[in-house]
């Protein structure tokens, strides 16, 4: 009588395939808990086959079986395998290599328009700060916080100002100075980037306030005829640092623009694309600020010749612009 039961196929469906599922589960455990490198060549051939077998078993089980535990198990197994197979990433060193050969420069080229706009805003607010202080020196104290000016204000003597840009620091501790500069500047840049999400309004504010500050400082030095020296003092690291800060602002603006004006794409798609590109720019910004921190902490304190400072500034600027504009254009 029992042989008459026509459920032969259904009964044996699971028994026939269960070994495959267990094998797939073991391989996935190996990849997730250890490393994909642990897989042998046979495993690598097996993995996609087992994945497809499991996926097709899932399709059949959904239509023919009422074993809820089996269906749930197959679905979870298929999902895990899907993300291992289709979501796989390149090894870290190749990701890093790819970032320098094309990821970073391409991302920077992708936000060229925003960079120009942020640069224009920065220089416009710099000019505004300069002319405000020139027209009425009282503005200086309003614009520049006391601890930052550190005595370098409109009443300072030309001698004091000259010392501040040419004299070697009394104490050693350049490496701490460089570290502080690097971490602080990076943090501010990351903040400027992240704030871009709020339609870039806080990013604009952050960039403009930095520009005004710089303009006001310029006014203090220019009034004593130290404009040339101050520019050298500033640009030896500034050609890298200011560029990095402008790029961070531009990356923030890029996100803000995508969120506010997504264009033909959905808002989500536009924001996602802008965010991923912006993040690549930001890693670059952190690297640039590391370079700038070293230049500011060491080179600026050790090199006091104006022309040497200008030469370094120009070289750094040339390196960055050439790298960003021509690196791997056709990839």
């Amino acid at each position, binding site marked *: *009588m*029992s042989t008459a*039961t*026509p*459920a032969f196929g259904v*009964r044996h469906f*699971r*028994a026939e395939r269960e070994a495959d599922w267990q094998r797939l589960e073991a391989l996935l455990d190996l990849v*997730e808990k250890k490393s*994909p490198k642990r897989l042998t060549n046979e495993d690598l051939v097996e993995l996609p086959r087992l994945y*497809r077998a499991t*996926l*097709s078993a*899932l399709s059949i089980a959904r239509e*023919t*079986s*009422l*074993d*809820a*535990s*089996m269906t749930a*198990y197959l*679905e*979870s197994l*298929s*999902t895990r395998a*899907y*993300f291992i197979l*289709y*979501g*796989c*990433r390149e090894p*870290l060193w190749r990701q890093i290599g790819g*970032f320098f050969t094309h990821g970073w420069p391409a991302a920077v080229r992708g936000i060229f328009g925003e960079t120009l706009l942020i640069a224009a805003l920065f220089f416009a607010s710099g000019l505004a700060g300069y002319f405000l202080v020139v027209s009425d020196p009282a503005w200086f104290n309003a614009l520049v916080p006391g601890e930052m000016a550190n005595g370098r204000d409109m009443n300072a003597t030309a001698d004091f100002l000259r010392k501040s840009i040419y004299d070697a620091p009394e104490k050693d*501790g350049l*490496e*701490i100075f460089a*570290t502080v500069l*690097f*971490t602080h500047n*990076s*943090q501010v840049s*990351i*903040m400027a*980037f*992240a704030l871009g*999400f709020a339609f870039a309004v806080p990013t604009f504010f952050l960039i403009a306030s930095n520009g005004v500050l710089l303009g006001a400082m310029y006014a203090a030095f220019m009034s004593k005829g130290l404009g040339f020296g101050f520019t050298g003092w500033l640009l030896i690291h500034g050609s890298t640092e200011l560029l990095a800060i402008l790029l961070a602002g531009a990356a923030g603006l890029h*996100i803000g623009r995508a969120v506010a004006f997504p264009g033909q794409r959905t808002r*989500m*798609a536009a*924001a*996602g*694309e*802008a*965010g*991923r590109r*912006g*993040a690549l720019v930001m*890693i670059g910004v*952190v690297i640039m600020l590391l370079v700038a921190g070293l230049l500011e902490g060491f080179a600026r304190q050790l090199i006091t010749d104006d022309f040497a400072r200008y030469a370094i500034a120009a070289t750094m600027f040339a390196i960055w612009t050439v790298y960003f504009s021509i690196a791997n254009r056709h990839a």
Partner: protein
Amino acid sequence: MPNPPAAKGLKPDYVVRRTRELVTPEGVTLHLRLASAGSRAGAFTIDALIMLVTLIALTVGSIMLLGSIGHASAPLMIWLLGFFLLRNFYFTLFESGTRAATPGKRALKLRVVARDGGRLTGGAILARNLMREVEVFLPLIFLITAQAQGFSNRWLSLIGLGWTAIFVFMPLFNRDRLRAGDLIAGTWVVENERPKIAPDLLAANDRDATDAYAFTPGELEIYGQFEIQRLEDVLHRNDPDTLITVAGVIRRKIGRSDEGGNWNHDRAFLEAYYAATRLHLERRLLFGQRKRDKFDSAG
């Protein structure tokens, strides 16, 4: 006949609301379940604690180093760079791994995936985690300045805190539980549960024993998929009280006399009834008739 449960499918409402479909290139639909706001918050709390403990260890280590070498520069640099890396790259580092999850997410069985089901790029992981600067650290800064500053600045800081609350609580205000970081990275956080496969009840089933009960087709028509899968749960769990209760309910429903009270008899009866009904329903499934639950007359 009204049958609300059949219309909604076999899963409770709160599960359906968090389920998203992903169609593989092979054309099979997989269901992903989004992490709830509660488990996201839990995972973050664990990560924040780990970061805090690491920071304390870093600080203590730097101070001890300072004590042993008596020179401030190396320990200070280590501390500054360590803090910087911890603050900005803790999450990125862990989510870049194969499991795409920080220790906190692992503990709560969550992982990050790309919303389009594709590759989770390094850029996406960076983007979603750099955003924590406005979601976590900016509110923290406002909170600390509100504590430290004078009256007027305190109000300014509180307004700032209110503004950043928009970012902090953003996951609560959208269907997909997206943070600002998820939004700009094109990612979301899904549950990563691994249900174990339970023993096959049909394989263990003794066919002759089932036939001995001689269930009539009418008796096998009473229940549908939903009930038979609950019965599967009951059999797997194997709790004597539940088995006796369920066996009593089913016997009454199909109109058999209650031999009850004996756990062994009830277990055998339920196993036999489960096997018979499941085979019956699966046979109808092969003919394209799915009886979703006991209210489903269409199947």
